């Protein structure tokens, strides 16, 4: 029998719980209100790194090359040491500059362990690091790390903790067969044939020429709307090696991607047609984006559906993120482009019509204009049950003079060869779409978004590139790390009050790939259904958490959770497990259900 004190405590606890739920109920009645708040804590957290783009000193038209490679400020989120806290990998790009593996200490501070882990390198004299991706390529339960470069990629195998408890990584690029040169700016991992092993897709900007040792100046886009002389993509199938380890073989042509020769800036994957197989969206600079549907026959082959699904465009596609922003049970796609005084491309919010076609609703939803857009991420930052959208932007913030007039004079010059480095004027200290305010679009729950970046405290004017979203302190509010090229990175901690309730799931594949990438969860709570998929690196220069975070608004309990694993298993959690999910971070293992970490 409980003592009186115990009874009181229990009663107080129930009251507190009720108050919390009541508060959530209030919040949930106001989807997309202007209550979103963030606190920038990068300095205090120890993650205020200043990115340095590659300098091409001494090389012909060095400034032009620098301009076309003005990125590389990437971030990848992943729990590499399986301690239950998402860590950060923050990249740099200039010669000799180290990357930062930031171990999450669990108190919103981080410790740089890149050197001891052996993952700080890669920016050598012949290579420029541009993107990073955590994925468990060998299903050993430890996240491995891919560093994508203008050069050959580096795959670091996570060997786990050494005698000193620090984790060690080994460069296995040669051993796994990742030795092909490419000017890679994007990398995603997903299982193309649902065989339980993660495959790898690389998006390449330039053709495979060494920009650091150029033999010809004709390396730039041959057309600024319809360029077809870019690096396209390469696709790498995860296969067993003779020694029992895993490796990769290129299957780009066989899988149906060989004809894409555009200037790829970003890649995204998801099950666009709800058939259980992962499809692909390619964002192309200087020309059309492309969509490929998985044939779904287990062969890991794809068919291009660009013409019928989205049509051909001439925009400067920068980012691919995927989410069900309108909760209709179909994944939608957000692509950033260039919208500025001199060019009004408008972003694309591809609403999935559910019939193989998509309709761009960026104007209707209010998400069209984000300046010179880069990464964008869907995330429910206030747990109201609707995916919000954070977008970074800005190309180059420098002096008062503007590069655009000089550039346009070049463009309209009769007979100009756009592919020739020599055609472009030097940028010197000029700005180009710089000093642009970031946009935080709060999902209003009625098919529209409202920019609340200023009110939320995230409307910085830095030259943003990547966004890593995660609940770094496991408090149920999503935080994010923002990288900026040639400028300091920022860490924004979620500080929104009166938020809704939430559920956070970390899925562990058994028959499916260990990271559960491609797994789809449909969660039902309070009469609403919420759809989310685990993705392997969607978003420009970004990888966000692979946990699935659901805001459920005022719902005080989860009613149902259905998990569709890439293996084909459809798992419905039993009621007692469902009851334990609300306002918690939970691990779920394929075929088992809830498990401890």
């Amino acid at each position, binding site marked *: 029998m409980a003592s009186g004190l115990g009874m009181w405590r229990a009663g107080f606890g129930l009251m507190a719980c009720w108050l919390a739920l009541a508060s959530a109920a209030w919040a949930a009645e106001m989807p997309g209100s202007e209550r979103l708040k963030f606190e920038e804590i990068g300095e205090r957290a120890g993650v205020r790194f200043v990115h340095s783009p590659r300098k091409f000193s001494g090389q012909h038209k060095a400034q032009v090359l620098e301009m076309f490679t003005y990125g590389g400020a990437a971030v990848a989120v992943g729990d590499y040491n399986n301690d239950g806290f998402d860590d950060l990998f923050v990249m740099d790009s200039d010669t000799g500059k180290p990357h930062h593996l930031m171990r999450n200490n669990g108190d919103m501070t981080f410790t740089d362990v890149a050197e001891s882990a052996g993952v700080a390198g890669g920016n050598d004299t012949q290579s420029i690091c541009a993107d990073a991706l955590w994925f468990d390529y060998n299903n050993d339960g430890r996240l491995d790390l891919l560093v994508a470069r203008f050069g050959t990629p580096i795959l670091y195998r996570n060997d786990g903790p050494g005698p000193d408890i620090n984790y060690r990584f080994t460069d296995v690029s040669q051993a796994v067969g990742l030795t092909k040169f490419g000017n890679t700016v994007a990398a995603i991992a997903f299982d193309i044939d649902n065989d339980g092993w993660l495959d790898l897709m690389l998006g390449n900007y330039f053709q495979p020429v060494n920009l650091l040792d150029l033999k010809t100046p004709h390396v730039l886009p041959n057309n*600024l*709307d*319809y360029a077809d002389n870019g690096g396209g993509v390469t696709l790498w199938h995860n296969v067993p090696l003779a020694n029992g380890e895993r490796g990769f073989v290129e299957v780009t042509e066989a899988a149906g991607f060989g004809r894409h020769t555009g200037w790829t800036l970003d890649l995204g994957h998801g099950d666009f047609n709800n058939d259980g197989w992962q499809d692909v969206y390619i964002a192309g600079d200087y*020309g059309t984006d492309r969509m490929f549907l998985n044939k779904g026959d287990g062969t890991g082959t794809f068919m291009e559906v660009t013409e019928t699904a989205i049509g051909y*465009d*001439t*925009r*400067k596609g920068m980012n691919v993120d995927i989410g069900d922003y309108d909760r209709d049970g179909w994944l939608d796609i957000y692509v950033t482009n*260039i919208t500025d*005084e*001199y*060019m*009004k*491309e408008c972003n694309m919010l591809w609403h999935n019509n559910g019939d193989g076609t998509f309709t761009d609703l960026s104007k209707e939803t209010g998400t069209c204009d984000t300046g010179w857009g880069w990464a964008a991420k869907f995330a429910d930052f206030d747990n109201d049950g609707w995916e919000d959208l954070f977008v970074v932007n800005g190309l180059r913030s420098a002096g008062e003079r*503007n590069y*655009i*007039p000089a550039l*346009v004079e070049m*463009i*309209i010059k009769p007979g100009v060869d756009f592919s020739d480095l020599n055609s472009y004027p030097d940028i010197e200290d000029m700005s180009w779409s710089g000093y642009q305010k970031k946009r935080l679009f709060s999902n209003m729950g009625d098919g529209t978004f409202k920019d609340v970046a200023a009110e939320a405290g995230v409307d910085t004017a830095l030259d943003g590139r990547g966004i890593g979203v995660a609940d770094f302190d496991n408090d149920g509010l999503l935080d994010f790390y923002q990288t900026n090229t040639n400028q300091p990175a920022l860490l924004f901690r979620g500080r929104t009050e009166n938020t809704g309730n939430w559920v956070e799931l970390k899925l562990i594949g058994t028959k499916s790939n260990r990271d559960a990438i491609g797994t789809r969860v449909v969660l039902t709570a309070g009469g609403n259904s919420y759809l989310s998929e685990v993705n392997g690196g969607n978003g420009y220069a970004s990888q966000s958490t692979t946990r699935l975070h659901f805001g459920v608004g005022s719902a005080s309990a989860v009613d149902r959770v259905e998990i569709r694993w890439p293996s084909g298993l459809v798992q419905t959690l039993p009621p007692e497990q469902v009851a334990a999910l609300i306002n918690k971070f939970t691990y779920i293992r394929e075929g088992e259900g809830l498990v401890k970490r």
Partner: protein
Amino acid sequence: MRWIAAVVVTAALGLFGSAQAQEAESLFQEAVQATQVADYEAALTKFEAALQADPNNLRYGNEYRLTGVKINQVKTYDRCIAFFKQLVADHPKAPNAWMNLGYAYVDKIPTEGAITQVLLANTALGHFSTALDLEESWLGRYTRGNSYLYWPAIFGRTRWAIADLEKAVALSQETDKRNYQARAYRGLGEAYWRLNDLEKARQIWREALELFPDDKELPVLLGQDDKALNAFLTAHFEPGKRVDTNVSALWEDTASQAWLGQDDKVPPAPAPIQVETGRHVDTTEGEISGKAN
């Protein structure tokens, strides 16, 4: 539309009295009829034949281009451009052929990507300039000045727009007042809006409204506060948006020939005629073709 045909025939006869003009007009009418029954391929071919017979005919070119816009296919825009390019190559002294070539490039802009749009717009400007080099005209000045307005202020073309539009206004003041002349005043005010001089813009529009009290668009411009006006004009001048290149107001508005070059002769007004439909048409309402030479 038969009354138009009758008017045009009469006007053409009055103007040229030549067999070639009659042939051109006949071909033009056949093209118009083909357009009315949606036989666009035949229409385009007939328009082209009419223009080959009368290359400086602004109206023929206008209807030809507008048929292309109605079809709205890239290959048709390309066909129009290619046709006018050949036309100006064959008739380099025909200013209206150059104007139509410029308009053909403008017509294609919405079908293209942002960078190609810049190239098309710039090429069009070049052709408008050639037309003006051949012959000073209200239409040339207005068109080129208005084209500069579509370039964001950052490119420094707004001053050039002001120079052209001021000249267009001056030219219009030398002739009888016509409703379409209000466009140059509107554009001039919009140029000052581009330069963030809203006071000057509104002053010009107010003066214009006194001159053109029936103009429908001036009150819209004058009736908005700064914020609304900025939004309105920003949307209006959005790059890539289809620009209305239909210049038929020049001959549908009144009998004015103010758009013609300064050396052009204003044709004698033909006598009113009775068209087959029984509608009485006054030549001050239905205008002659855009023949400038």
